[in-house]
């Protein structure tokens, strides 16, 4: 079996194993797994509406995954995607409600505001890492909490003591009548185009530009990069800024597409943390992120239909997701087993 084939097979085998484990648990607790998975399937692909919503759910995961992956490729662990996404969400919504402009200006402006806000939130840990060697993991964790409280306070101010902003002007919205009509009024919005574009952007930066070359070099070996004349500090900051911008865009998807407003949050959205899983499921590559986000988004969204259609607790899907991640992570052992299996086959022939 070729290397490529096994690489492709690992995630597939993992998904199958994950679903098997889920089935066993369902059986053990008295549910019918076939019914459960039928509900899951319908929850993902049931009709145009669910398909639209599934894609909508995938959209922010794509960007959160890109954010984590991009930082990872530069040797940085950005646990702060959550916070960067939250500030991006706020910034986009704020621009969306504060002014009314022609769409051609308003929408890009709101999107850029989100990216800038996220970038700023990534800049702080990047700067501290570069200048003071402060570990980015702690700073980003702290920045998450700061983002949560600060945006909540800002929402209060903006909404005159309320708990959410007005809905954004249509001129800043990512919603598209065409997509909505296509998908029986799902909230599928144009954000998916932006997200996929960003996948391309990340691929381009990493694989085609000198910047990407430097970021990867710094990610692997700072000493050698410095000896080769690269500005290590600049690259660290840049990596965090770009990563933060991706995350901020993830927030824009929520602000301008899914919700069209921002409301006070009692806790984290979870998208940022799930981004870690998405990125790593995809081996931190742009194409991998598409796979990770699709898997994650579909399962998470489809899960909603399990209590709905089969009366099975939603947590079962979370367990399945965890198990899949576990097996993808353990790809080495699966690859080994696959190789053995194919070797045996050859022998038999």
């Amino acid at each position, binding site marked *: 079996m070729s290397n490529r084939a096994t690489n492709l097979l690992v995630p597939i085998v993992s998904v199958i194993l994950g679903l098997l484990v889920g089935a066993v648990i369902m059986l053990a607790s008295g549910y019918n797994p076939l019914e459960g998975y039928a509900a899951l399937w319908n929850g993902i692909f049931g009709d145009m509406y669910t398909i639209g919503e599934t894609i909508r759910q995938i959209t922010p995961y794509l960007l959160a995954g890109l954010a984590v992956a991009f930082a990872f490729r530069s040797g940085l662990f950005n646990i702060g995607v959550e916070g960067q996404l939250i500030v991006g969400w706020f910034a986009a919504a704020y621009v969306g409600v504060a002014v009314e402009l022609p769409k051609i200006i308003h929408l890009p402006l709101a999107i850029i505001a989100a990216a800038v806000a996220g970038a700023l939130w990534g800049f702080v840990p990047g700067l501290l890492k570069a200048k003071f060697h402060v570990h980015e993991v702690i700073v980003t964790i702290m920045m998450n909490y700061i983002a949560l409280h600060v945006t909540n306070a800002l929402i209060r101010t903006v909404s005159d*003591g309320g708990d959410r902003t007005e809905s954004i002007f249509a001129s800043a919205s990512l919603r598209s009548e065409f997509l909505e009509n296509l998908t029986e009024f799902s909230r599928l919005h144009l954000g998916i185009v932006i997200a996929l574009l960003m996948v391309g952007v990340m691929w381009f930066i990493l694989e085609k530009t000198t910047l990407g070359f430097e970021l990867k070099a710094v990610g692997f070996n700072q000493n050698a990069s410095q000896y080769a004349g690269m500005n290590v500090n600049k690259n660290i900051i840049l990596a965090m800024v770009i990563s933060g911008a991706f995350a901020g865009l993830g927030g824009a998807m929520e602000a301008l597409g899914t919700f069209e407003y921002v409301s006070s949050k009692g806790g984290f959205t979870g998208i940022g943390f799930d981004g870690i899983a998405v990125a790593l499921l995809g081996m931190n590559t742009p194409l991998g992120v598409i796979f990770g986000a699709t898997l994650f988004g579909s399962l998470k*969204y489809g899960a909603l239909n399990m209590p709905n259609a089969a009366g099975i607790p939603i947590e079962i899907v979370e367990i399945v997701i965890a198990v899949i991640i576990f097996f993808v992570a353990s790809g080495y052992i699966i690859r080994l087993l696959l190789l053995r299996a194919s070797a045996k086959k050859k022998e038999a022939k």
Partner: protein
Amino acid sequence: ACGSEEDTSTGETGGGEGTEEAADFSVAMVTDVGGVDDKSFNQSAWEGVQQFGEENGLEKGDGGFDYLQSASDADYNTNLNNLIRRDFDVVFGIGYLMEGAVAEIAEQQPEAQIAIIDAVVEAPNVASVLFKEQEGAFLAGVAAALMTETKKIGFVGGMEIPVIERFEAGFLEGVAAVDETVEVDVQYTGAFDKAELGKTTANRMYSAGADIIFHAAGGTGNGVFTEAKERKEADPDANIWVIGVDADQYDEGQTGDANVTLTSVLKGVDKAVINISEQAMAGDFPGGETITYGLADDGVGLADSRGAIPEDVMTKIEDFKKQVIDGEITVPEKVE
């Protein structure tokens, strides 16, 4: 939600005569991330839905009554949509967070009847339900001011959002109505799920001399109870009390043979849910209206103190209650 659970139809849910008489009406609700057993408004709403279902011989599931839990804010939309597609006659969105989703779905599904709790959505097919939390909290303030020995009282809030601020405003007003000199120490912890902050905050307040704390902080309030119970255990004679919120939190206050729950400010989400369901079944769904429940219609109130508040104090509280109902006292929604 109230301690007085009227389990009238135990054992009748699973068919039998109930089915024959079953009304041709169905009702469902979408919870926020807290779920139907959050010991708070989601739970209360679900209890209302269940009670309505039982009273009308409905079964859980399609054509009867049901709920869907949301895993994140993004799921409200989908869940509402799912229930409407399953042809429930009335669908409830529980909590202010669902405002946007309800507005959107109401527009997309003009045939559907949707009710939202704790927020106002202006659409012809949406009934909005609000509560005068401030009136319930007012009575709690009265009770606290009458019961305090140290003349110091605490208020622990979760996030600074309008609902919680109504609790705060009413509470402060109630205290002041009894005794202007009683100090109220107000602190917002910024979260509904940080019990350790609730505990530390309560610790500070009790240490500074407060003897009663009213919390409107969800899970953060758990910490307030823990702190109170520990103090009570350490010194059974200590005058330490907590006033619960949303549902009767008597159980939370139990420690050994003692109980630190003075009373709780009830929010009758269950009653509202039943009310609206009944109206809808009768063909009078109050679409486009905003219904506000206050002391007058028992939408808010105090839970049974189980003797913690003596008779004479109760009488005074009743007196204030009457004044509020009669409109002699208007409780503000916001702290001045």
